[in-house]
């Protein structure tokens, strides 16, 4: 395979199965962002799209994007993950820090208000799994730990500044002593 074919396959793998996790020393194609895991054990590959080829172009064209189940709760749980994991919002959003899942649920509870506890937990778990399936968060269900996923690195500078404002407006998680 030539280099061109290699690049083609990397884009196709991303399209088929989401951000690709590879060994740190692996060759990687031009035009892809390389995200190093905090312990340098692996690298995520994420294609870099030019501004006018990104999903927000759909809004300008009046076209529908991919449908998300329970979009409001899913967005709230992503916001809660961001509030708990992005401990230094003045800095980059990747890799951020791991946070206990219960802390994320507590922030979710604080922004959703009065809700039956069982329904709240079901909504939070459904949303966390959905976000993990799409690569927005990394969710270790056994250890009950959440991290931001590699896809957050695709947010543009403008999107990040909006998210920083959102971050400030959200209730702070209770950190363990």
């Amino acid at each position, binding site marked *: 395979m030539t280099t061109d074919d290699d690049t083609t*396959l990397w*884009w196709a793998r991303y399209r088929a199965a989401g951000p690709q996790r590879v060994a740190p020393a692996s060759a990687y194609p031009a035009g892809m962002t390389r995200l190093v895991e905090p312990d340098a054990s692996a690298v995520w590959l994420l294609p870099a799209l030019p501004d006018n080829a*990104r999903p927000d172009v759909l809004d300008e064209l009046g*076209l529908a994007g991919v449908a998300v189940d329970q979009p409001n709760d899913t967005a709230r749980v992503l916001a809660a993950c961001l509030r708990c994991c992005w401990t230094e919002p003045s800095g980059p959003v990747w890799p951020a820090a791991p946070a206990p899942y219960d802390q994320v649920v507590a922030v979710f509870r604080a922004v959703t208000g009065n809700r039956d506890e069982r329904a709240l937990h079901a909504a939070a778990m459904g949303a966390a799994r959905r976000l993990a399936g799409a690569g927005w968060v990394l969710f270790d269900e056994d250890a009950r730990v959440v991290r931001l996923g590699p896809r957050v690195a695709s947010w543009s500078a403008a999107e990040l500044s909006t998210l920083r404002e959102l971050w400030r407006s959200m209730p702070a998680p209770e950190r363990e002593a």
Partner: protein
Amino acid sequence: MTIFDTVLADLNERHRDEVMAAFAALEHGREPVAEAQLLALRDATVRRDLQRLLFRMGRTLVRVGSTHWTSGFRDDVTAQLAAEGATAQSRVDRAVLVLVLIHSVAIPRSQGLIGGDSWTSGHPTPVDELTRYTQLPRGEIRPALQRLRAAGLVQIAPARGRAAPTDGPAYLPGPALHRLTKPARERLEHELILAAAPDSPLAAAIRARRPAAAAAVATPTRTSTTERNEDT
């Protein structure tokens, strides 16, 4: 140099913008896009540049009906990804998808209720139908449907027009099925025939045609990986 720079370097600014907009519309959009809406779909010259860009990413233009377009995987890239096992769907998810396709497309087509070779359909598959006769563990069907829904491979059928409101939820094939190329649609049909009626004359005919096809995939010629496809 990124793929975008390489492919679009020779275009003027306006055409480059048109190609990028169409790329975003086809790759990120949920449904196929009307040709009339975008110059890069309407104009055959600009469309060729869009196809060149998609091609470099392992994708290709797919025509839907006579007026709409979407994008899908190139057939040679599909073969490569399948050989690597790079698929997002688990075995259970794929099994549930096939059941929906059998009930919503294969059976109505065999009865002459739908024509063409599309894998989309207006014939709902009730969830009850999936759970009652399947050999899959029942508890796995609901989460599988959720994941397939997130991938656009199935969608909930609108309640209107169904036999009775007490039927419970029903599913249709999702908009992502539009992304199958013509050879991919045919492969899916052949695989279903081989699985459902392996002893039928039709299955024998498909098997008889296979060795030649397999050899063609193993030694791709320059023409089989061209940047054009039959649609463009």
